[in-house]
């Protein structure tokens, strides 16, 4: 069976709910199965990628470190919505991993190419 193009969209902020952590686990599972994996971060989901932070202060484990390990798993297609980044006063330098900044129109084209889309 040939690899499928799996697209994972992260829209939820970290820690307030567990969608980000659930999404990361799903991405890692897909990478183990050698699928063609792409990640899109949009809206408050962009904060999943902000570097640093100490979640011990709120009693939660910092699962976000897992995003830094993605490259080791061969996952390197990481897209951030450029307008959403900008609307949050971020430049991209705050992020923990290298990302591709795309316009919404370019992201819409990426969505069209996916076989399966999972949202988190």
């Amino acid at each position: 069976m040939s690899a499928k193009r799996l697209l994972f969209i992260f829209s939820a902020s970290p820690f307030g709910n567990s969608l980000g952590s659930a999404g990361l686990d799903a991405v890692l599972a897909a990478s183990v199965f050698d699928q063609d994996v792409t990640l899109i971060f949009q809206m408050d989901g962009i904060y999943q990628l902000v570097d640093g932070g100490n979640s011990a202060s709120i009693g939660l484990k910092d699962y976000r470190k897992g995003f830094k390990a993605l490259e080791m798993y061969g996952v390197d297609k990481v897209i951030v919505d450029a307008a959403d980044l900008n609307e949050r006063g971020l430049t991209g330098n705050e992020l923990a991993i290298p990302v591709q900044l795309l316009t919404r129109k370019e992201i819409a084209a990426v969505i069209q190419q996916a076989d399966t889309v999972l949202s988190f």
Partner: protein
Amino acid sequence: MMTLHIFNQGTHQTELLNKCLESLTPGDTLLFIEDGVIWTTSSPFDRLNKRLKVTGIDIYTLSEDISARGLESLRAETVQMVDYPGFVSLTEKHNHSISWF
């Protein structure tokens, strides 16, 4: 590779709706289910329509959810109703779907 967008959140998620509308490609379909059906009624639909910049988008609302909430008489006329079998048909016709929540 047209996309079926499935939106299930009410008007408190206006930002999510905007993001969904911006993500449409001509030929895509937008289906509102659960609390999302609120967007296919009266003034909320007018607001949606104003923000919809892409042409050639079919918009549907799930009749069971409209009916559960007593919103039949408020439904915008230009929105098409589908029931669950109609929902399944929409998924047949589109290669893939995105759920917005």
